[in-house]
């Protein structure tokens, strides 16, 4: 089972070409971070993965089915996308109603709804806020509400668009735990992020994008120790890697324990 993008391009209705001929395969159980500067095509690419964007040419195949043959609503059941801006997604009066919306729409039993909501709410760490209007919550918490509203559908793939924006230490810890738990429960997790510390600490595969294409795809070590890729995608080495570089240490160090061991 996988998401496959084969030679896909995407042109917006106004003629703006956002992606040119990209190919990539995301396999089951992977943890993938997509990085690169604004305008590189990151969000356009992941919106092809959940059917919000259908490629202008080429194909996107999800678990063997071409997205051209399916409606976005059907695809969204298996590929959940959490918008960068929670306000693009929230439309209910209370956090509980927002999270229950999908399972109620699909007419699950009350018991099933309760189980799913409890699971989603626990992973997102928002047990305290169920009765509150989402718009009375601060931005970073609203983001967790939208994440829970996607988890509740139990998609096989979850795409988190800039989840760390405005998050404090506690929020970052919830995100890390959530990603671990989702992977354990068989979910493939993708993220788009500008936060390289988040990427290196939580994801095993990094896809670097620039100029409407994928310019590199590999392990964190392969991406963050390739100066050409960093310059082209306009991303920075995580700070421990930067320190290792300034100390002229070899071994493509990215993590604190590696660095301590080396010194």
């Amino acid at each position, binding site marked *: 089972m996988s998401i496959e993008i084969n030679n896909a391009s995407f042109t917006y209705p106004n003629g703006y070409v956002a992606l040119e001929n990209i190919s990539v395969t995301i396999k089951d159980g992977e943890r993938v971070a997509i990085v690169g*500067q*604004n305008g590189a095509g990151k969000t356009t690419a992941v919106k092809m993965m959940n059917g919000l964007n259908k490629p202008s040419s080429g194909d996107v195949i999800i678990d063997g089915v071409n997205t051209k043959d399916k409606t976005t609503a059907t695809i969204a059941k298996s590929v959940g996308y959490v918008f960068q801006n929670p306000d693009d997604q929230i439309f209910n009066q209370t956090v509980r109603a927002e999270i229950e919306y999908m399972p109620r729409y699909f007419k699950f039993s009350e018991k099933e709804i309760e189980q799913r909501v409890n699971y989603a709410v626990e992973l997102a760490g928002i047990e305290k806020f169920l009765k509150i209007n989402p718009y009375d919550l*601060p*931005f*970073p*918490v609203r983001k967790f509400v939208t994440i829970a509203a996607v988890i509740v559908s139990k998609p096989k793939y979850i795409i988190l668009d800039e989840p760390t*924006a*405005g*998050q*404090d*230490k*506690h*929020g*970052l810890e919830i995100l890390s735990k959530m990603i671990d738990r989702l992977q354990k429960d068989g979910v493939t997790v993708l993220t788009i992020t*500008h936060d390289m*510390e988040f990427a290196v600490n939580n994801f095993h595969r990094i896809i670097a994008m620039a100029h409407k294409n994928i310019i590199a795809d590999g392990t964190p070590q392969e991406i963050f120790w390739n100066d050409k890729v960093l310059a082209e995608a*306009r*991303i*920075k080495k*995580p*700070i*421990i890697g*930067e*320190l290792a570089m*300034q*100390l002229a240490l070899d071994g493509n160090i990215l993590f*604190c*324990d590696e*660095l*301590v*061991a080396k*010194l």
Partner: protein
Amino acid sequence: MAKIELKNVTYKYPFTRDFALKDITYTFNPGKFYGIIGENGGGKTTLCNLIRGLIPHFYKGKLKGDAIVNGIDIRDWDLGELSAQIGYVFENPFTQISGIKPTVFEEVAMGLENLGVPKEEIIEKVMNVCKLLKIEELITNNPNELSGGQRQRVAFASIISMDTEMLIIDEPTSQLDPEGTEDVFEIIKTLKRSDKTILLVEHKIDMIAEYCDEIIVMKEGGIAFAGPTHEILGNAQIMEAGAMMPQVAIFGHEMQKAGKPLAVIPITLSEATAQVKKRREDNVH
């Protein structure tokens, strides 16, 4: 001189049960750069709202204790007059641009015009600020047609042109990409050199470590830790209070645990590099 004295300040927003600020006593001295960090919901923005006078003039609620700005109790300040003393750059600089002025020059000049500053003086001030923020070449452009980074500079310029002694900057980079973040910090670096009193709320702890003189860690409406940047950001206890610690400081503590202590816990990349090099040299001799 912008001096803020808070004595046993407690505050509760209207229609809420919990106190947003609890017994805060702190003095902000002129010319210093303060970093306010800590968990979300810990009272960081509320503290900014109080100092800017939005509490109690705009947000009513219950305010106890003394908040004194330049010798005058916050309750006795006129909000308009206070705005000539304290500039407030909101969480999202994009919302700050008025959208009603056709050129960058007029956008930046708007605040001064409203204060009735003479024309020649406005021109001089606006040109100086535009030079400082490297937007001189854009003064005839329409603010709405600029890139994100450029707009940000314009938003900052319109606050800086007011030449207030104090600036409050609330999470200016939370929604920005790394290049936009660097643009903002370049502006903040310029402001630091101008001897203004600056209060910066920010989660990007490595940036805070680089620029601030003093750090205030807020938790549950109170001040959990406060003091010189090095002392606070090198102290692992701030993490228990819900604040982030610079990666290189965590590295410093890990070195200590591994029996390879550095002379000082570093809080910036350059300090960490220097500390490790020093340790290597000391071990050679």
